[in-house]
């Protein structure tokens, strides 16, 4: 008797339709395109920064590795740019933080008046910085500017505002504060209004002094918002261009020659692609390092705040 063994053939798995198989790739495609869109110009700039490359002198183009970066380190103009950019960023961010926090505290209660004022205070933020600069240029005109007239009432005559090296930084910082303080204010106000109320109610019941509540409860709980707002403004201030260029084109002398202003002039007016790209890469490195510091702080603070909660 013979037996027949039937070996079952494995059932062929039904083919999955094409679309579900491609879907993960399709979903990540926009991110890939954006990534390429960012990385291609970045690496192109990095490539140019390694070359002596002036468009007006195409025959002199040469690859110099890090020669331009080394030249920068010994160039006093570069260090002046680092110093001016740091002073500008520290002054604007510091003052805007203080003012923004102060205004946010004043507007913390949800009243009709506070709501109207907080919306009105956002108006400067809706003005293009270059337009704001032109407005301030008129207001600070020593001949007919309303601000020149106002300071003259206080005995300060012939104040030269942005046209004197000694007061140029003060003037552009003032414009920056006018434009961007509302940004700080709105972020911090949102933070303040979202804080849990229990600690404040407990402090009130215990009769805790106002300054103690501010320094020991409000500020620590608000810290992640402060760090976030400061990070945004710091990055923006380091890369400032429009206000300064519209008001002084980086002058008088080199007194306001910020990174972006120098890089812009290098490329668009002097057609010096190599030095412009090198400056932008240095600026990127600085802002990247700063961002890292801030983000680490922010993560620590968030952890602490959540832990405390």
């Amino acid at each position, binding site marked *: 008797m013979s037996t027949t063994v039937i070996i079952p053939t494995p059932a062929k798995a039904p083919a999955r339709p094409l679309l579900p198989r491609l879907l993960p790739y399709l979903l990540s495609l926009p991110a890939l395109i954006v990534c390429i869109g960012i990385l291609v110009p970045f690496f192109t700039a990095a490539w140019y920064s390694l070359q002596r490359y*002036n468009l007006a002198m195409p025959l002199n183009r040469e690859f110099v590795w890090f020669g331009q970066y080394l030249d920068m380190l010994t160039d006093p103009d570069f260090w002046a740019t680092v110093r001016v950019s740091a002073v500008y960023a520290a002054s604007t961010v510091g003052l805007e933080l203080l003012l923004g926090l102060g205004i946010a505290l004043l507007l913390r209660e949800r009243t009709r008046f506070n709501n109207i004022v907080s919306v009105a205070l956002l108006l400067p933020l809706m003005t293009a910085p270059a337009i704001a600069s032109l407005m301030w240029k008129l207001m600070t005109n020593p001949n007919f500017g309303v601000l020149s007239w106002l300071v003259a009432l206080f005995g300060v005559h012939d104040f030269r505002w942005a046209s004197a090296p000694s007061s140029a930084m003060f003037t552009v910082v003032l414009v920056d504060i006018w434009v961007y303080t509302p940004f700080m204010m709105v972020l911090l106000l949102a933070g303040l209004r979202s804080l849990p109320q229990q600690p404040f109610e407990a402090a009130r019941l215990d009769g805790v002094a106002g300054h103690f509540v501010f320094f020991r409860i409000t500020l620590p709980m608000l810290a992640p918002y402060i760090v976030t707002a400061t990070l945004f403004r710091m990055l923006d201030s380091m890369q400032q261009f429009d206000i300064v260029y519209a008001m002084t084109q980086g002058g008088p002398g080199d007194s306001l020659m910020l990174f972006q202003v120098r890089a812009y002039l290098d490329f*668009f007016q002097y057609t010096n692609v190599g030095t412009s790209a090198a400056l932008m890469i240095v600026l990127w490195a600085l802002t990247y390092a700063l961002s890292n510091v801030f983000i680490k702080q922010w993560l620590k603070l968030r952890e602490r705040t959540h832990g405390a909660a």
Partner: protein
Amino acid sequence: MHEKAQDLATAFLAGRIGRRELARRLAGLGLALGSAETLLNAAATRALAADFDWKKHQGTQIKVLLNKHPYADALIADLANFETLTGMEVTYDIFPEDVYFDKVTAALSSHATQYDVFMTGAYQTWQYGPAGWLVDFNEYLKDPTKTAATYNWDDILPNLRASTAWSGKPGAELGGPGAHQWAVPWGFELNNLSYNQTIFDKLKLSPPRNMEELMAVAAKITKDAGGPYGIGVRGSRSWATIHPGFLSAYSNYGQRDFTMANGRLRAAMNTPESKAFHKLWVQMIQESGPKNWATYTWYQVGTDLGAGASGMIYDADILGYFMNGGDNRERGHLAYAPFAANPAAKGPTSNVWIWSLAMSNFSRQKDAGWTFIQWASGTDHLFYGARKSDVVNPVRNSVWQDAEFKERIAKSYPGYLNQYEKTAPDAKIYFTPQPLFFNLTTEWAASLQRMVAREVSVDEGLDKLADSVNRQLHQAGIG
């Protein structure tokens, strides 16, 4: 009646009858002179078409990049005539001057084919030309199949033709041997004095004739005019601060920006004579200039004069021209005078700004582009611009000789023609052409700002400037 009117217009353009005769005969046909403008333009178009195949590129569309300027406005107003003449279509983008040259640089450096023709200054061609972005017009000008016999290139003022041509060799003479005609002059600016006649009359002042008188008159205005300051000059941190009055006066003392030795450029801003001139200029601004001089571009200089905030300006003559009209408070109160800073000089040495037309090397229809350029810089359009629009100053000698144009200017702009006639013979670009023009000249302006702000002395400032300039020239391999 229409044919008769056309014949009259043709006869007028051919010079067979004069303007008065044309007006009389048109009146006989029941037409006003003003309404005959269309006839004249149409007749001019027919006359142009007679000697050259203007229809060769019929149906072609070209794109032009324009800076917002009265010259561009005149061009746009007359475009229909070009399109009728050639059957071509012209589209254009127009940008304000603040961003205009950024747009040009971006378009050319990216080798974009978008624009065929664009407005430029002569200095810009020192970058664009050597970079390979511009068409050399020499080949077109010499080719009778591409350039109409009536174009008359020699009619364009010789200094302007030379100033828009350069070999690309740093320090080589403009218009010298081997020069490429990178651009075609279209309109230009002389740098002279424009002053407020009312203020001058009130203070019993005469237009200053040299630097010493200029400083004295400016100081007198600042002291006694009851508000206006004495002299408006540019002061922003830009090469444009150096090129108008400053370089015109500087050149009048025989001073140069660079010297050339053994094929190498060397800064010449710190010679004793240059330092002496800088001291005068700085003193003049400190004593009688605008308080916020360091932010002054041509715009503030001009509007202050038009608003009666300054007594005079040493800047582009056309700036004074435009401030004498429109809605300006001092409209009709301005006058013009030639100016030679150096009492020992034989006449003014005005450095010129030349609005020119250039063609992108990346254009795909260069012949059509050239057709447009030769029309725009040709006699007929420039006559139209000078007579009916605000193309002051025209680049063609024949237009300057035109009675109608001269009559219009003489009537409303006292002294304007005189300043032109006295200045034109030696008006040209006094800068040394070299590829680092914009950075080195901007640095010169920044140094001037430091001197005016008393951050450095003139001697120290110019020595530092010369050192920095020489270092950069050396790094670039041209010094």
